[in-house]
């Protein structure tokens, strides 16, 4: 029963990792952009929420109605005004530019907020738990985050497969040059794509900051976790990303059960093992 508990808690932890990964997966899937600043954008969202909470008195989850549109606008502007210019020269230029953005975000946050750790306070929901049969208690908040991840992915799937814009995104992901020849304005579409990716980044940032302390340097580890979830699940598969997040979460929970010092390392080890056994991940979609 103890192991079942570990599986459940670890699996639920995967929800936040999947949320970390969605934005990264979208920007890579649609425009082949490896966004090194992704983790810092998650943390930036948390700081934006912090400012909104302090100035409006909203609780963190309600602050999403302000944070999400702001981050969408930032993503749109960032792609349109900067990253679009890096996409014609191969993989390296966007990598370098987003690395630079990462450094800028970290240092600006350090300048503006100091190196202190912060946390968003949501109240009683953070510690509430539900008893389930077998003497196991499941945290309401992790359950909520997991449900948000599932809904986010289901919503994105519907968007990609049922809407005109989603169809255009899939076509551009297949072959951007031909899509442009068929009348699609790639630059505008890419800007929308990063905007949409940032919606999920903002969601991930706020939900993570309610659960965990954050500081200006908290981004890179979120980036690595996001990368691992995407790679374990297989590039281009959103449900795979959720599963990748769960694999990471479960590996960490198992590691922590063995010894608290093993928690983080166990996740990375699980990632390395999967990379060796199935280099293209559990559900690969992208074929290039």
């Amino acid at each position, binding site marked *: 029963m103890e192991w079942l508990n570990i599986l459940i808690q670890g699996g639920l932890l995967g929800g936040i990792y999947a949320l970390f990964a969605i934005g990264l997966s979208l920007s890579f899937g649609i425009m082949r952009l490896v966004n090194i600043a992704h983790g810092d954008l998650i943390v930036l969202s948390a700081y934006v929420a912090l400012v909104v909470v302090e100035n409006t008195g909203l609780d963190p989850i309600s602050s999403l109605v302000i944070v999400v549109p702001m981050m969408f606008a930032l993503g749109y502007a960032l792609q349109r005004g900067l990253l679009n210019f890096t996409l014609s020269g191969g993989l390296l230029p966007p990598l370098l530019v987003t690395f630079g953005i990462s450094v800028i975000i970290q240092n600006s946050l350090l300048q503006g907020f100091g190196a202190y750790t912060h946390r968003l306070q949501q109240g009683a929901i953070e510690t509430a738990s539900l008893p389930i049969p077998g003497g196991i208690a499941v945290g309401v908040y992790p359950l909520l985050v997991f449900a948000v991840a599932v809904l986010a992915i289901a919503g994105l799937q519907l968007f990609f497969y049922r809407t005109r814009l989603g169809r255009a995104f899939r076509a551009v992901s297949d*072959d951007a*040059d031909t899509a*442009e*020849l*068929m009348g699609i304005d790639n630059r505008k579409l890419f800007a929308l794509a990063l905007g949409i990716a940032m919606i999920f980044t903002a969601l991930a940032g706020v939900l993570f900051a309610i659960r965990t302390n954050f500081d200006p340097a908290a981004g890179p580890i979120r980036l690595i976790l996001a990368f691992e979830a995407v790679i374990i699940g297989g590039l281009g598969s959103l449900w795979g990303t959720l599963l990748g997040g769960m694999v990471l979460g479960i590996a960490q929970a198992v590691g922590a059960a063995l010894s608290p010092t093993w928690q983080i390392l166990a996740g990375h080890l699980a990632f390395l093992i999967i990379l060796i056994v199935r280099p293209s991940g559990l559900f690969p979609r992208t074929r290039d």
Partner: protein
Amino acid sequence: MSLLRTHGLSAFYGDFQALFGIDLSVEDGETVAIIGANGAGKTTFLRAIAGALETAPEMIEFDGRRVGHSTPHEMVRLGIAMVPEGRKLFPSLSVEENLLLGGHCGRAGPWSLQRVYKLFPMLDELRRLPAPALSGGQQQMAAIGRALMSNPRLLLCDELSLGLAPVVIRAIYDCLGAIVAEGTTVVIVEQDINRALDASAHFYCFQEGRLALSAPTKNFNRTAITAAYFGL
């Protein structure tokens, strides 16, 4: 009246010049063939017209307007559609989604999903299949249908016959007639000279990036074509 006119159209791939000052015109409603050997610049010419290569504004005149230096999606909005060499259907989209994507720009005109299915009834039966599941000929039909969905005034067809069986090629060229009957102007690029000449009223022969011969297809002189084709 000329629908398309090029003035000293030159195009480059990096430092390599692929087209040298091409001047040609295509009348409204006419079907024009561009022939020439491998590397003569036929595909480059079509890609330049479609906006995929850098050109100066005055080099391309479409419907009386200078439209060079436009992006591909702007060209589609103006009414120039392309059937690219090798079909280039989107592999993760179904046949119907490929067609719908062609209509993304929302230009009004006679072509709709229903009309395309009427022209190519086979596609109607296959519409839910992923594009790579189709045979070469079916893919070519889907690629033509996808281009028509943007309701083009000018349809650029690159190597329609490439890799297809003769009977399939004939079927596809028969369908071109229905497209021309809608008033669409068509430019076809072909390696297969006879096929190209049968389908067109006027032809241009390219040779090493330059225009070597231009003539009405009727009463063409076969030796003149051979000379222009091979540069003899």
